[in-house]
């Protein structure tokens, strides 16, 4: 294939603090091709997209578009130059009509008044390309299904002369049938000379739709080529081929009796029919791509999301079994469960409140008499905890939002320790945490298991799961694989299972 080069990236770098999000990326996109961009979570795909779309400026490196230098000042500028982005989370205004959404920001006006007739023709032309006559210009966007809404977003890109169309995980919320119809459209756009950048976790889709691909790993482009020349397994190797360069302190621990049993656990949409047995003194990891339903599984167990089918059984020390599929978080806490949220800022912590408050919300009883708080006793206890957790702070009274990400996470995890939970549900326990704090969090997890606690870890960072856990399972589109000892998994097998190969 010798189509002309459409867009190039040369040695593009971008760092956030000490983190190198992009560390010298090379990318070459040709006209009229579907180019897949693959890589693990955190490999740098989203930063790369933001650079392409003008949302983020690279620190160094150069880009060209159709032979001319390409330095977008912002997303609007990039769009005008013909580079459009369809994000995983759609950006439509649900109360406006299809026509108003497609034309939004690009309305034709004369003396400040809308020229609705002109706009209508332009929108109709754009919609015609979709070949989905059921999407009418005057329909309300809120009434369309996700697949149709996505097409409206694509129509918006078509309103301008689109040259590079970036699709981020476009099939994650689509049914199989809608995905196939989307592929048909993607091919049609390609045949019209549009360059489609296709970002996906699902390698079978990549094989099916893309002409060429590029693999990102640790912010670098580590390989690529014509898709037909590579087996899926080879692509997976390129994605995971990293060294286990981090320290995983292991505290010896021994799995004991079962403590948490899930059978056929099914939530509103995700998860779908999960079976799992967690033992005392065990660290069990759940791998999978973002959006596979791992968070939803933890939330359903903890009572934050409803359980639609299946059962949650908790075994107490005395041997009694508590069977309550649906119980509010307050009861789950009383039953010995504790949960660490994946999102510290939005859910895990009350950032403008003090460290001592955040640490003790779930167990104020030891400091309480008739509803009154013994503030002094609590402060002394919290000071003790902060030392044990090695939180770097000015004092227990400090607002938790003033701490660094790693220390915030230690407080959030410390809440579960202070609560003395027997079952710890940890969702991305090291997200946004520096390397030093990571090692301390691993140490805490190991110590918990050594004390007979059961730990369920969800993480998108595979080396960490392989380094810390005793057993591992992979979740794919809401379903959980068999649980196997961690030694029986290779990184390639986990990636293959997670990406549905």
């Amino acid at each position, binding site marked *: 294939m010798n189509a002309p080069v459409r867009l190039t990236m040369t040695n593009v770098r971008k760092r*956030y*603090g*000490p*983190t190198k*999000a992009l560390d010298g990326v090379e990318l070459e996109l040709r006209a009229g091709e579907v180019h897949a961009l693959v890589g693990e*979570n*955190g*490999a*740098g*795909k*989203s*930063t790369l997209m933001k650079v392409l779309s003008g949302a983020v400026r690279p620190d160094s490196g150069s880009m060209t578009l159709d032979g001319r230098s390409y330095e977008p000042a912002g997303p609007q500028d990039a769009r005008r130059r013909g580079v459009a982005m369809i994000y*995983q*989370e759609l950006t439509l205004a649900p109360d406006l009509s299809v026509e108003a959404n497609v034309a939004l920001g690009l309305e034709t006006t004369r003396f400040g008044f809308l020229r609705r007739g002109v706009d209508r023709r332009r929108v109709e032309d754009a919609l015609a390309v979709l070949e989905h006559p059921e999407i009418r210009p005057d329909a309300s966007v809120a009434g369309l299904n996700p697949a149709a809404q996505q097409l409206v977003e694509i129509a918006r890109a078509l309103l301008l002369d689109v040259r590079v169309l970036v699709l981020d995980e476009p099939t994650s919320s689509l049914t199989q049938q809608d995905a196939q119809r989307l592929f048909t459209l993607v091919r049609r756009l390609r045949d019209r000379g549009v360059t489609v950048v296709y970002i996906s976790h699902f390698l079978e889709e990549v094989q099916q739709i893309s002409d060429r691909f590029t693999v990102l790993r640790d912010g670098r482009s580590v390989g690529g080529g014509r898709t037909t020349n590579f087996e899926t397994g080879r692509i997976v190797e390129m994605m995971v081929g990293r060294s286990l360069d981090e320290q995983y302190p292991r505290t010896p621990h021994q799995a004991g009796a079962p403590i948490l049993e899930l059978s056929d656990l099914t939530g509103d949409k995700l998860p779908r029919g999960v079976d799992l047995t967690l033992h005392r003194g065990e660290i069990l990891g759940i791998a999978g791509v*973002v*959006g596979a339903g791992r968070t939803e599984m933890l939330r359903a167990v903890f009572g*934050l999301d409803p359980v639609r089918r299946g059962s949650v059984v908790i075994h107490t020390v005395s041997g009694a079994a508590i069977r309550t599929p649906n119980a*509010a*978080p*307050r*009861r*789950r*806490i009383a039953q010995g469960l504790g*949960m660490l*949220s994946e999102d510290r800022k*939005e*859910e*895990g*912590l*009350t*950032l*403008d*409140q003090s460290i001592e*408050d955040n640490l003790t*919300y*779930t167990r*104020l009883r030891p400091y*309480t008499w008739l*509803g*009154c*708080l013994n*503030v002094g006793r609590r402060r002394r206890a919290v000071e003790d905890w902060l030392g044990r957790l090695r939180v*770097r*702070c*000015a004092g227990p009274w*400090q*607002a938790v939002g*003033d*701490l*660094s*990400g*790693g220390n915030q996470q230690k407080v959030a995890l410390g*809440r579960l320790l202070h609560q003395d939970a027997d079952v710890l549900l940890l969702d991305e326990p090291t*997200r*946004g*945490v*520096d390397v030093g*704090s990571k090692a301390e969090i691993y140490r805490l997890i190991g110590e918990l298991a050594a004390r007979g606690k059961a730990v369920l870890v969800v993480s*998108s*960072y595979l080396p960490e799961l392989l380094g810390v856990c005793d057993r591992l399972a992979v979740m794919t589109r809401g379903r959980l694989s068999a649980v196997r000892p961690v030694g029986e998994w290779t990184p390639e097998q986990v990636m293959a299972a997670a990406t549905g190969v």
Partner: protein
Amino acid sequence: MSDKGDAVKSQTEPPRQAFRLPAEIGPLLGLLGVFALFLILLAWGGQVRSFLSLYNLQLLMHQNAIHAVVVIGALLVIISGGIDLSVGSVAALAAVSTALAYKHTLAATGSAEWASVAAVAAGVGAGGLCGLVNGLTISWLRLTPFVATLGMLSIARGVAFWLSDRSQVRPTGTMPAWVDSLQEARHKILFFDPGVWSALLLAVGAVVLLRFTVFGRYCYAIGSNEATARLCGVRVERNKVIIYTLAGLLTGWAGILAFAQASGSGDPTVQVGLELDVIAAAVVGGASLRGGQGSVVGVLLGVLILGVLENGVNSCGVPLEVKYILIGVIVVANTALSEWQRRRAG
């Protein structure tokens, strides 16, 4: 969910040594500022002696007792991330209920003591009931506090007019001593009138509630981040019902003060716009309408700032419109300043 691995920011910076002045320092400076402003203005006009008199101090406190009582309830609501627009109407309804209960119990029993007990119970009870309804509408029907209490603003006013037959309810005979002493700005023994002392007592109770009880911690947690409160097993809905009911009970007591200050009569038309005065005072006093922040001392200082403003404007003989404009400027400037501070603190 998005790929957040890329958005990791610097984690290696050492923790900031956060030394912060108490949050009340801002409102305190504001109070001193307003006070100094009028001192200069009045010294210019030669009326400074009456402004600085003890009687003027008594009058200032007397005039702001109702605001002080209501702002404590509003503080609870605002800390938990809500808002209560209904306090003006609920206070009027409580005043009417108080007057009606006094009138009818006196007619039935002939005893001023029993009538007084019934009157206070009716006033506080009417306020508490309105607060309970607010809380239930917000928790069970999942309406936003703005809409739920906007509805109550209209309903309570309507019920007040209905119960009072569209006119002042004026019990016959002489009023008992407690009504008279609440009506007077000065008091022989207590110096301030008992209404002021009741506000101070309630304020002390609120300080204890917010700082030293589990319920108080939960109020801040809910307002700061409701999702976190849920995650930590806080019964958010139940706590909200309690918060709005407490606010209603306090508004009921304010209604009784209004009843006494109107020489012992229930007027369904009083306290229109009280909610705006109170919210303004709370905001000036450092409470954040986003929830999670605010202190009793701060909002009481807020009430005093607006009170001194009103009192000073009256003493100056400055036209009324100046007062309104000044209040608006202070509210906006104060909030802009604290937002600026928040951004700088990161």
